């Protein structure tokens, strides 16, 4: 239908109980309304009426002799039908209640009641489809009877998840190496932040240091060991970008590569900002926004490692490797390297709540299984869902 420029699957036609008049029955009204549809119609309302009426009566008993389509001025269509077995002919008019009432000339009480009801009860987008039945006398005069109206509503509604097919397949997303690296890095970052904060904060330190202890030495030892381990984790992760067989972990999963992904990036961002409410595109791995965010965090992590080792290098400036870090210190100024190192920690600490929240949200609200896949390695995907990165 040219009237609807939306997919047919999204059109939903709802019929409420028919309201018969003139002592008719609901069944009769429904059949009459269905018979008033043009032959071979593809209008969704007609189809709904036909479908509903066919449960009550075999419509093959009728044949349509003529059909006068709806005229904007008259606002009603007229069909001429004949019952095959009895040869009985009838005219069925459908349209706005006013228009049908005008055609039928019912008594004042009926007219008043029909108009009132059609006006008062039609809420929530329901509208009354009036039906009139006419018989033609042998002399050619038409006698019309107002049969009643049927509340009809056409809405656009996206399907709900609950209505989608409940068939799932298990897709493995992250291999165990990556998951181990992830949780290991989480542990290391927490340890590094905690020891870093303790080393930097006097109040916390005093509580622990009574007389001579090696309190700060231990903190520093833990911090340095964790730093070296984080470096190892970073090296493994970077190697994995080029060596992993898993497509969701390779380097091209770090950022949007296709134009399509860039468009999806905007859509996902708008979804998060509550500027759009339709469902965002599905990705098995990271969606473009996640890709950008997590790549940025990788960058921040590398900055943490770099500034950390630039400070660590001061203990042995003649070292064959550390001398280059010391050159960097001289370039920027040690104090500013330390400042950057501390800021990097705060970036991590600010990132963690957002990251955790969005992961939980991805599992519970968006049903994308982000949180479960970093634990178990895989997620359940609804069959038939289109994934952009599948």
């Amino acid at each position, binding site marked *: 239908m*040219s*009237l609807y420029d939306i997919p047919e699957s999204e059109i*939903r036609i709802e019929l409420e109980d028919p309201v018969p008049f003139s002592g008719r029955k609901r069944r009769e009204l429904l059949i009459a309304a269905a018979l008033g549809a043009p032959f071979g119609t593809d*209008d969704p*309302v*007609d189809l709904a009426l036909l479908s509903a009426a066919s449960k009550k009566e075999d419509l093959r008993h009728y044949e349509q002799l003529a059909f006068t389509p*709806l005229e*904007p001025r008259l*606002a009603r*269509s007229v069909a001429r039908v004949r019952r095959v077995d009895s040869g009985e002919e009838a005219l069925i008019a*459908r*349209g*706005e209640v006013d228009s049908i009432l005008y055609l039928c000339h019912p008594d004042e009480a009926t007219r008043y009641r029909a108009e009132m009801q059609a006006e008062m009860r039609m809420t*929530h*987008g329901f*509208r009354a*489809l009036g039906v009139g039945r006419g018989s033609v006398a042998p002399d050619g005069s038409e006698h019309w009877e107002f049969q009643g109206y049927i509340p*009809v*509503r*056409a*809405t*656009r*509604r996206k399907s709900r998840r609950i209505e989608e097919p409940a068939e799932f397949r298990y897709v493995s997303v992250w291999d165990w190496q990556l998951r181990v690296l992830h949780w290991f890095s989480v542990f290391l970052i927490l340890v590094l932040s905690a020891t870093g904060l303790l080393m*930097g904060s*006097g109040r916390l330190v*005093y509580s622990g*240091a009574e*007389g*001579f*202890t*090696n*309190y700060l*030495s231990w*903190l520093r030892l833990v911090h340095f060991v964790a730093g070296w381990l984080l470096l190892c984790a970073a090296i493994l992760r970077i190697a994995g970008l080029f060596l992993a067989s898993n497509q969701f972990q390779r380097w091209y999963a770090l950022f949007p590569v296709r134009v399509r992904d860039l468009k999806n990036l905007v859509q996902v961002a708008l979804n998060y900002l*509550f500027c759009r*409410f339709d469902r965002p595109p599905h990705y098995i791995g990271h969606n473009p926004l996640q890709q950008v965010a997590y790549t940025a965090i990788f960058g921040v992590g590398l900055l943490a490692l770099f500034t950390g080792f630039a400070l660590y290098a*001061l*203990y042995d*400036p*003649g070292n064959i490797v550390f*001398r280059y870090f010391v*050159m960097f210190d*001289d370039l920027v*100024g*040690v*104090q*500013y390297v*330390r*400042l950057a190192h*501390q*800021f990097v920690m*705060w*970036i991590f*600490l*600010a*990132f963690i*709540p*957002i990251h955790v*929240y969005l992961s939980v949200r991805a599992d519970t*609200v968006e049903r994308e299984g982000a949180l479960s896949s970093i634990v178990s390695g895989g997620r359940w995907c609804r069959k038939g869902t289109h994934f952009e990165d599948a």
Partner: protein
Amino acid sequence: MNESMDDGWPGSEGFRDYLARRGVTRRDFLSFCGRMAVLFGAASLPGGGRAFAKDVAERLSGAKRPSVIYLQLQECTGCVESLLRSGSSPVDRLILEQISLDYNELLMAPSGTAAEEVLKEAEGRPHLLLVNGSVPLNDDGVYCTIGGDSALNVLKRAAQKASAVIAVGACAEYGCVQAASPNLTGAVGVSDVITDRPVVNISGCPPIAETITATLTYYLAYGHTPPLDGNGRPLFAYGQRIHDKCPRRASFDAGQFADSFDDENARQGHCLYRLGCKGPATFAPCATVEWNMGQSFPIKAGHPCLGCTERHFYDRMTPFYDRLPGFMVPGLGVEATANTIGIAAVAASVGGVAVHSAATVIAKKRAKKARPETLPLAVLGDTEKREDQDKKT
């Protein structure tokens, strides 16, 4: 200046013979050599410090008297004062006094044309060039002129025939306070002007007198400059980090810190790290050699290290009495520390998460309640046109 030192060290005489003539015993001389060996960090060399000390003694005994030009450019004279008031041993003094110090603005008796002539003459001979002070380059070097000529030209002329160039003090190394932002005079160090040969930088504001004498001793003994680090500083002195040899290091490791200059921890001599001590990032022999004949040095005396031997310490080691630089928050004009900003960022992130999750709940509820979009009905005569009108109204 030769005239003023009638009992000087003639060019032909060896240093040892000269010392003997001046009444310095061989014992004093060897003990000086031993001290220098310690300063050079020779104990870690193969053969140990004793062998090195003997080596220095042998070489120094035969050293010939060098001609020295000691320029003072854009500076405060603090370095020379430090040198003069170091209370050094007789040999130190003799090394300093009895090098043929042909030209030095502070110490020389002649002035005016006579001084200029001395300089001109000394420049023509092979000599050792010591420089104090930075070289201002802006506005044709008008900010420091000596004898009517800019410091740049004076330095260039003096360096032409110099066998070695030694920049003494932070000013000569990179410009020090003058070169700090915004560096109005365009001050640069000697090594920025003399680029065709290595310049030895004896860093510090001022440097310890002993590092100056030790460098001269090394030069006299070996005829060439000592091994240098990446910033052109002699490794024997500037290869060690103050933090690693600090007498308060134990307090640091124990986590005992002074929080203000007069608190209990400060009285107990605890670590000054939180008072802005830059020892962990500063390379200098202060903690080992100390100042004024090993009497003391800032950290020992209860003052945090300012990091004056590091380049651009005036820009980069500030604030001197805080651990980390502060931050001007744009719009507020408040100096905030990294931790304040960091805590604010974490709070903002948690708050953002809370707001966003609340918004998610609201959006979900509204989506459930929301009336679906109503479509036109063809059976009631609706057309596209009517739909458009609906939208407008």
